[in-house]
């Protein structure tokens, strides 16, 4: 603390102004976070105040209570959606990390004739918006009879061009001599991959874990398109039903606010823990 005070004292006038301006900007940027946290604890009448307030005046847990207890009357309880979301997010992360790392290692360090073509296809895949491939995805999931299975959630996200690209850029910087040294030490490809490549690309892996987690955790499309069985749908889908896709503007607002906070928390926690590593990867790979 004392060190920070000392540092502030040493600043020039311009630097002080800059610091103030940045602090203001940071405060402004964090308003949504303040809002989402406060909103979840607002009682019913405060939710619809006009003009809306950022801070809650009379905090209550009613919203959470309703969120958890209401569906008891329905067939599928809230906890089932939460459980599905956690399972899907966790499995997707593991699958994406494994497949992307292996693909990136091969593309970065091994020589084979179709390498350029494969890289070009990955680049091409980067350019498609998810909406454009929704129908082919639906057909594939249907053919493979993955409707109403967890694998139906996971399969469409496994091949992630962004993840492959990020990790490949990272592995490119691992000197080839390191792998050669390992080869001469007697390590097999698998061993080199596990003992050297994986530990050295940890920052990149952390980054893609977060990207993947965020993508899967907030995505309702798989639940909407591939899952007909209500018990296989995930949390983001459930939240849209609370307000009936914004058609019902009053009844579900309290629950939606509470659910929104629950959805947001994991992202915040992960980011706080891993932000240094994310920065590292972004700087390294030149991706902004």
């Amino acid at each position, binding site marked *: 603390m004392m060190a920070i005070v000392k540092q502030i004292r040493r600043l020039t006038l311009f630097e002080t102004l800059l610091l103030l301006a940045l602090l203001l900007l940071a405060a402004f940027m964090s308003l949504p976070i303040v809002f989402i946290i406060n909103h979840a604890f607002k009682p019913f009448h405060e939710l619809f105040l006009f003009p809306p307030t950022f801070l809650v005046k009379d905090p209550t847990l009613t919203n959470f209570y309703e969120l958890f207890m209401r569906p008891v009357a329905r067939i599928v309880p809230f906890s089932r959606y939460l459980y599905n979301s956690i399972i899907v997010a966790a499995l997707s992360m593991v699958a994406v990390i494994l497949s992307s790392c292996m693909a990136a290692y091969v593309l970065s360090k091994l020589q084979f004739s179709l390498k350029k073509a494969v890289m070009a296809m990955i680049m091409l895949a980067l350019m498609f918006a998810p909406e454009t491939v929704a129908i082919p995805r639906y057909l594939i999931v249907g053919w493979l009879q993955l409707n109403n299975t967890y694998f139906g959630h996971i399969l469409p996200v496994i091949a992630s061009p962004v993840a492959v690209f990020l990790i490949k850029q990272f592995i490119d910087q691992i000197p080839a001599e390191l792998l050669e*040294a390992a080869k*001469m*030490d*007697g390590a097999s490809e698998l061993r080199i991959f596990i003992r050297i490549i994986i530990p*050295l690309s940890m920052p990149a892996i952390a980054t893609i874990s977060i990207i993947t987690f965020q993508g899967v955790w907030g995505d309702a499309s798989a639940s909407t398109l591939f899952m007909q069985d209500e018990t296989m749908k995930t949390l983001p889908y459930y939240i849209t039903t609370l307000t009936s896709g914004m058609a019902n503007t009053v009844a579900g607002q309290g629950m939606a606010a509470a659910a929104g906070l629950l959805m947001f928390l994991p992202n915040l926690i992960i980011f706080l823990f891993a932000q240094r590593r994310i920065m590292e990867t972004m700087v390294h790979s030149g991706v902004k």
Partner: protein
Amino acid sequence: MARVSFHHVYKQYRSEKKTSVTDFHLEIEDGEFVVLVGPSGCGKTTTLRMLSGLEDITEGEIYIGDRYINYVSPKDRDIAMVFQNYALYPNLSVYENMALGLKLRKTAKHEIELRVKKAAKILEISALLDKKPNQLSGGQKQRVALGRAIVREPEVFLMDEPLSNLDAKLRTQTRSELIRLHQELQTTTVYVTHDQTEAMTMGSRIVVMKDGIIQQAAAPEFIYRQPANLFVASFIGSPAMNLIEGSIEEDGGTHYFSNRRLRLEIPPQYKPFLASGKLRNVVMGIRPEHVLLEPTLEDPNDSYGAVIDVIELMGSDSYLYLSMGDTRVIARAIEPGSKFHVTDKIDIGFRMEMAHFFDAESGGNLGIF
């Protein structure tokens, strides 16, 4: 420990038309310290990598001991390699770095510990065993890399410019340590460098390469005294040998090397090739230490005027960069540098018995018969 034999080895990369290594034929004796030296792109590293198994052999055969190893995988060749950038595993401690090779070979745990500790003691890195590579200095990293090679107790050490990333002082120090290490372990070593000083000081035999072809393979002193061709003459020695173009003329039974400025009598040991009667264009090579300066001139009649362009003080002696018209000559002055001054005009001579003559076209040394 083992011999290494290269039998007419060629290397051609698929993307290139020319061969990178051409007809590399060499026998390396047990316990020898062979240095492959040459400018970058001369194929020395490619040769080493073929021996290590990291690169395929296009044609020819390589033997370690009596074993034909063309198709043996790197880990089974019983060799250890030290890389220029150390190639230490950054996520493992120094101890684990050194132990990994043994661990992968299923060596017993107490044996690993014994060997790592012994190697660490030899290299004086016992105190660093628990550290991670990024906590070490360049010199310490290089020792760990050496240690990783030593613990394996291989038949052959391969070293690919291991000193290039060190600063000048550390390089000299590590150089002598490597020599000491080799004397202690007596392991056959193949060492690649582009630095002729390293080659001269370390090698028990030097292999000079250019464009993938061996130019000369011999003991350092022999290469220095009897360079096989113009390339070797200009590459080995610092500063480089003076090369002066001219032709050979005969005058009353005596042969002279002459050009527009010089007319020098060629000593009798060159008689055999001169007797062949082919009087052709040649390049005379003479080392800076064989250029005579004013006070030591034996025959004042045989001297030529030159102007001092630059004086390089090296401590014990200094090098004079002289110009005789458009001919540049480097001379070594043993006397204190203060005696000479830039732009002074001085008389110089040549110790002709130490001169070399090269064919101007083929570059071959005419004095090696």
